């Protein structure tokens, strides 16, 4: 009854993308999600950025592959509009020091083969006329964009479910179990046991607890990030925005609201207590940052704010691997606050790993055992 080809733990965007690609291959898939909701974790709470620019050199090929091969056709493939807009990313600078940071980011992305360049004030204002005159230049990547994270996660879920994937919400996995040396069962808090030929842990920061039950550990910390959304406004621009200082980022969505995220500086110190309560200093700090770059938006009303946890890996890139000492296990975690933009490709690669196929792209940089002492 509780047996399938693959069990996936975690129904976020990445777990659900993996479920979809596995079900599409004809495998039977069970997805176990501890929350009452599909996508209740970071996947429905993020800023929606589908960026290649600013990525770690190890992640850049994945991001570029996704933008070229997966994102453009995703709405058609999944049968619903996931609101993907590919109108570029502007990373803004106001000072010479900012421009230096942007130059560094541009150089490293260009070295990885990404079409990205530095532009001056005039060019930036031609792309987005609403910018403050304080903006003196920007890093520009014309093939970046954004999508609606809530819809992407639900679209993968909906399509996987239509292909027969079995989703169980309110099913908190408490441990993985090895039988004859192979990870082949998982046990939930209400005592159910699910067995599978292949088990994938895609549970965000909580992956750590699960992996501990088979003696593995990935160095990660939980960080609480916050977002805001404004009332709807007439359409102004489609670009994804960021800044050299990373003090805010965001975009205008299809229905007209602006979705922004920001950082006040104390995110890594939020108490990891199972809740997602924001800090009182967060919205004001993000609003000051936004107004500093977009004074025209100062009168726009915020209708909602929220927070979400991200699983920040020690080197800020994920782990996607089949550990040697735990046959039957696939790990996908540590997406470090930029997993949404690569969620389709990460799901596809985890589907490869969980079904024993050779991954479509090289995943050797994402090994679980790459963490070495610094001396």
């Amino acid at each position, binding site marked *: 009854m509780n047996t399938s080809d693959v069990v996936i733990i975690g129904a976020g965007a990445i777990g659900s993308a993996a479920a979809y690609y596995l079900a599409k291959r004809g495998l039977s898939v069970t997805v176990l999600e501890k929350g009452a909701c599909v996508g209740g974790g970071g996947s429905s709470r993020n800023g929606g950025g589908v960026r290649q620019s600013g990525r770690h050199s190890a992640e850049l090929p994945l991001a570029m592959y996704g933008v070229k091969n997966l994102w453009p056709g995703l709405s058609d493939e999944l049968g619903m509009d996931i609101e993907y807009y590919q109108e570029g990313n502007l990373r803004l600078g106001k000072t010479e020091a900012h421009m230096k940071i942007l130059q560094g980011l541009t150089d490293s992305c260009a070295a990885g083969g990404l079409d990205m360049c530095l532009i001056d004030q005039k060019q930036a204002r031609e792309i987005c006329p609403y910018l403050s005159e304080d903006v003196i230049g920007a890093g520009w990547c014309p093939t970046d964009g954004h999508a609606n994270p809530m819809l992407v996660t639900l679209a993968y879920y909906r399509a996987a479910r239509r292909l027969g994937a079995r989703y169980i919400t309110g099913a908190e996995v408490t441990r993985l179990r090895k039988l004859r040396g192979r990870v082949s069962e998982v046990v939930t808090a209400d005592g159910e046991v699910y067995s599978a030929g292949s088990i994938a842990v895609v549970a965000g920061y909580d992956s750590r607890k699960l992996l501990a039950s088979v003696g593995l550990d990935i160095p990660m910390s939980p960080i609480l990030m916050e977002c805001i959304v404004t009332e709807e406004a007439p359409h102004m621009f489609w670009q994804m925005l960021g800044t050299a200082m990373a003090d805010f980022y965001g975009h205008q969505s299809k229905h007209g609201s602006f979705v922004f995220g920001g950082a006040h500086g104390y995110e890594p110190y939020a108490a990891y207590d199972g809740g997602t309560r924001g800090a009182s200093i967060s919205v004001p700090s993000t*609003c000051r940052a936004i*107004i500093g770059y977009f004074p025209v938006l100062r009168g726009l009303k915020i209708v*909602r704010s929220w927070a979400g946890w991200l699983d920040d890996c020690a080197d800020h890139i994920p782990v996607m691997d089949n550990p040697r000492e735990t046959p039957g296990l696939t790990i996908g975690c540590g997406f470090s606050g930029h997993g949404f933009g690569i969620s389709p490709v990460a799901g596809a690669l985890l589907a490869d790993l969980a079904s024993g196929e050779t991954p479509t792209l090289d995943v050797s940089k994402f090994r679980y055992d790459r963490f070495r002492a610094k001396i």
Partner: protein
Amino acid sequence: MNMSVDRTRDFGEYVPAPDDDIIICRCEEVTKGEIRRAVRDGMFNVHEVRRFLRCGMGLCQGQTCARLVRTLIARELGVPPGVLDEATGRAPARPTEMYVFANEKMEGI
């Protein structure tokens, strides 16, 4: 602990209701029929339906329709509404201009 819910479920054929066109969420103009269909499409609670259809995401943030939406979802699933979570309330309680938030800066400490 959350109640465990297996999402595999055969709802049978969709039977249109005479009032399927009635608007439930006024801000985002979401109809009863859309909500009923979303449940059948796998959206089993207020949060998922809201993310899927935008009902309760407009200017009033669901203050008018939240209860109604929950009742409709519960009815489609055949469970009492109390079993389902309510939508989460979040700051700000009323829409508030960015410059008002931005002014909230304590000086001198």
